[in-house]
Each structure stands twice: as C-alpha cells, then as structure tokens.
C-alpha cells in the first residue's frame, strides 16, 4: 500500500485557502463525524469529502489512500459487529458464546464506526495534501499560539511518514532478497518474521533522528527570538469558510442534543 500524504501542489482553490481554515475544516469534520451516529449521514459526509478532493485535484492520491483504508475499515466494522452487545440478536456464530452474537444495532454501529474512521482519516489527508507543512507550522504558532518546538515536532513527524514507509519497503526488499519469507506460518511464527523488518527500521530511525538533531543545531534551531520571513493572513474567503464550518458544527451539536 503506498499512501502519499505529502503536499501536492496543484494550485486549486482549496490550496489557496489559509492553512488555519483547512485545519479548522479537518477538526470540524472530526467533531461532526463524532456527533453523527447513523451510517447514511456519515456516508454523505464521506462523499462530500471526495467531492472536495476532486475540487482540489488530489482525487487520485486520496482514492488510492481510501482503497488502502477500506481493508482496515472492514476489519474495524467486523470487530464491532461481533462484540457489540446491545440490540436484537440476528444470529450467533457460536451459541455457547452469547457475547459473540451479531445484533442489528451492532451492524449499524460497526458500519458507522468504519465510516467515521474513513471520514476522519480522509479529512486529514485532504488537509495534508493541500497544505504545505511550513504554512501549517506558521498558523499553529501564530494563530493557535502553539509553541514553535511542538508545532515543528508535529509537522516533522508527519513529514517523515512517507520516508518511513519507503524505508519499510526497502528493508522488506533487502530481507526478501536474502530469501526471508515474511508470510510464514502461524501467528507466533508470523510475529517472529517481523524482526528482520522492525530492527533495522528502529536503527535507521535513530540514526536519522541523531543526524537531524545535529543538522538542526548547527543551523541555530532553538535560539531565542525566532523571526518569520513570510507571514500569511486569512482572506475574506477564509473567514466565510470558517464561519460556515463553525455553523455546521453548531448545527450538528444542536441536532444531537
């Protein structure tokens, strides 16, 4: 699964929105999806996100990520379906284990849960693919008063996910090339086959962190009195979008309670 969550500069209207607006968007979608409990509204929310992805010309990336997410979502739904206790029992796969029965409410809950997960991840993917990391840091620091170090930490962690996935791929290949079989045997054996992947990954990540710390220090990271070369201000469109988002959240809260 290759998930690109890097900034993709397509110059769409969505890209031109202020980072703060898009961050509020992602958080608003998160809040609304938590308030919705029925599959249908969640599904509508999900499709509107895909619509926005099309508007931002990042559909291809978002769809390939969504494809990967489907598996996780399916698994999540299955788990909920089997372990949700309330509702009318539709059928019980193992009669002696009543906890494992499938109920009507369980199915709805499982599907909603899976959809909610998809909605939340997609909205953050949208944010990440349409917003350069630098703008995010700036808006976190300037408007949300997050200390620069934390904002930097957050964004660096995100920035390194693609590199990290690339590393995973290369290490996997290097071990496969030495005839290592990652797919072997039962669950315990399967766990053991992970070591040749996990250990080099940890070592490489530590090396990278150390190198990066050194590179940052030599360039004066952490000196007091940081200044910014470029500042960005939200425009009229941003204010309108933010107001709309906040009203949507308010509406969702009112409908729920």
């Amino acid at each position: 699964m290759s998930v690109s969550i890097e900034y993709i500069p397509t110059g769409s209207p969505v890209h031109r929105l202020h980072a703060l607006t898009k961050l509020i968007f992602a958080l608003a979608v998160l809040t609304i999806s938590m308030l919705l409990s029925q599959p249908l509204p969640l599904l509508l929310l999900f499709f509107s996100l895909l619509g926005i992805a099309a508007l931002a010309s990042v559909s291809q990336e978002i769809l390939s990520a969504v494809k990967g997410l489907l598996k996780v979502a399916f698994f999540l739904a299955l788990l909920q379906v089997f372990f949700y206790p309330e509702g009318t029992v539709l059928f019980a796969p193992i009669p002696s284990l009543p906890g494992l029965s499938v109920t009507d409410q369980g199915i709805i809950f499982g599907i909603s849960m899976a959809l909610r997960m998809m909605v939340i991840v997609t909205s953050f993917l949208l944010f990440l693919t349409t917003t350069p990391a630098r703008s995010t840091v700036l808006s976190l620091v300037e408007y949300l008063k997050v200390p620069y170090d934390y904002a930097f930490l957050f964004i660096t962690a995100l920035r390194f996910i693609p590199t990290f996935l690339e590393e995973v791929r290369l290490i996997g290949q290097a071990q496969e090339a030495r005839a290592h079989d990652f797919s072997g045997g039962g669950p315990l054996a399967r766990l053991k086959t992970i070591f040749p992947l996990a250990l080099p990954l940890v070592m490489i990540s530590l090396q990278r962190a150390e190198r990066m710390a050194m590179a940052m220090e030599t360039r004066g990271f952490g000196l007091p009195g940081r200044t910014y070369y470029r500042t960005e201000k939200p425009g009229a469109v941003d204010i309108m979008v933010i107001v709309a988002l906040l009203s949507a959240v308010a509406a969702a809260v009112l409908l729920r309670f």
Partner: protein
Amino acid sequence: MPAKLTGRPLIEVRQLKHIYRSGGEALKGIALTIDAGEMIAVVGRNGAGKTTLTKHFNGLLRPTTGTVLLDGQDTAKLPVAQLARTVGYVFQNPDHQIFHERLFDEIAFGPRNLGLRGDELTTRVDSALKAVDLTDYRDRDPGELSRGQRKRAALASVLAMETAVIILDEPTSGQDYQESEQIMAILQELNRRGHTIIFITHDMELVQEHACRVLLIDDGKLVIDSPPRELFRQEQALTSAGLRLPPTAELEQRLAAFGIHSDAGTVEALAASIARRSSQITARDSFKENCSGGAAACQ
C-alpha cells in the same frame, strides 16, 4: 549451469516497462538478455532507472508491462524468496538489512533461509567473512563496524548464499580506494568461478577495468549495450546521458589527434605509447638539425 546447457539466456527482459504508483514511468520499454557468466556494469545518471531495472531481475519489482524471465521462468509468477536462491542482491545501504547482534549471524541469515545448517553453514559464513576481510569481526556487533565495513558485511551476507547471479547496487560507494579494489577483486574472482555479476556504478574507471559489458541507462531507456571500449568511443552519447569518459579513455582520444594511438585503457600503456612517440620525435628533430641545416630551413 543449466542455462549454458540449454543455450537459453539466464536473464531475458522483454519490453519491460515500470511505472511506480506514486511516480512516473521509471522504465520505458527495455529489452536485453544476459548470459550466464557475464560481468556487467550498469551506468547512468541519478534517477535514470538503474536500480529499478536491476530489481526486476530477482522479482523485487514486478513489471508493469512486459516480462522478465530468469532461466526461462517468469519472475512475476515466483516468490522473491525462491528467486533469491538464484539471484542475490546487495542493496546500496547496508543498514537496510543488518539486524543481528553478531556479525556471524547476520551473514548466516541468508544461507539459513536457504536451509543450510551445521558445518556447511559455518564454512560458508567463514569463507564469506574472509573474502571481505572481516574475519576479525566475526563475533562482534555489526553496529560497531564502520560504514565501509558494514557495506562489506552486507556483501558477505549475499556472497554466503552462493547464488548464480549477484547484483550489487553501487558496491564501492563510500569505500576508499583500497577497499574498492578489494571488492572488485572479489567480484572478479566470483565471475571467474562462473558467477554472473551485475553491478551498478557511477565510477567509469571501474567500468573500464572490470566490466566486459556496459548497459547505459538514461531516462528509463537502454541507450547503449556494448563492451566498455565501444561505449567510450561514443563520447556524445555518454555526455548526453550525463556521464564522462574515464580520464585514460579521454586522454587516448585527445592523443589520437596527435597521431599517438593506444587503446589498452591503462595508464601504463598510455605512458608507453607517449614515450615511444616522443623518442621518435626527438630522433627526428635531431636528424633535422644535423642534416637539413636547422629547424628554420624546414618551414
């Protein structure tokens, strides 16, 4: 080797295209065949597609379209772990594979995966360690080794598998002169014993000295497939692929304009032909001075 007996190529690449999912078309239709026992250098600028191409030879990457046959079998239909019995691949970065706490076990990882145990395993590992000059570190933690040593450790871990084909992605990068020479000597020796060696490099002198065939890749295409000497005659193609002639080859070409001919590609041969030529010149000049009344009279 069975490939020789049947007369079919060991590796056969047909109309190979590779498109990365998150990127562009890295290989744009490559066709070539490799016979058992060849020693091949793959050259080309950064991002040309060298790594992408060679990773198809052992199934680490699968063709987007086209086919890659290894000993007549379609690599797309076989698991990498099985192809690894025939084709070993040494990655550019040794840290992508090292994970044992003892060098011996790191080198033994591949052979163990192939089912080797006991004395045979120990012999294989020890001789691989010896080949890369790391015997003294046998029981040490690979993490303590220098980067150059770790690189040789990675090489040893593939050598110990004794595969018919060995592919190396920039085996000498980050090695000093002596270490590079040592690595190339190992490869040459393996080649002499019948192994097919394919190495990616940016060092044109290595190509000149050690390869019998060069594949020049540019922009996902195989631009030239020839012996090194012929490649070096096509300076235009080399320059447009972002490469430069090795110094001796360049000097040979410049000297040819002065009527000094040599194509052995070594400093010794060049020096000899220059010396020969200059003694001719000295002889002729002294002849002129003695017999024609001085240089001015000749013009």
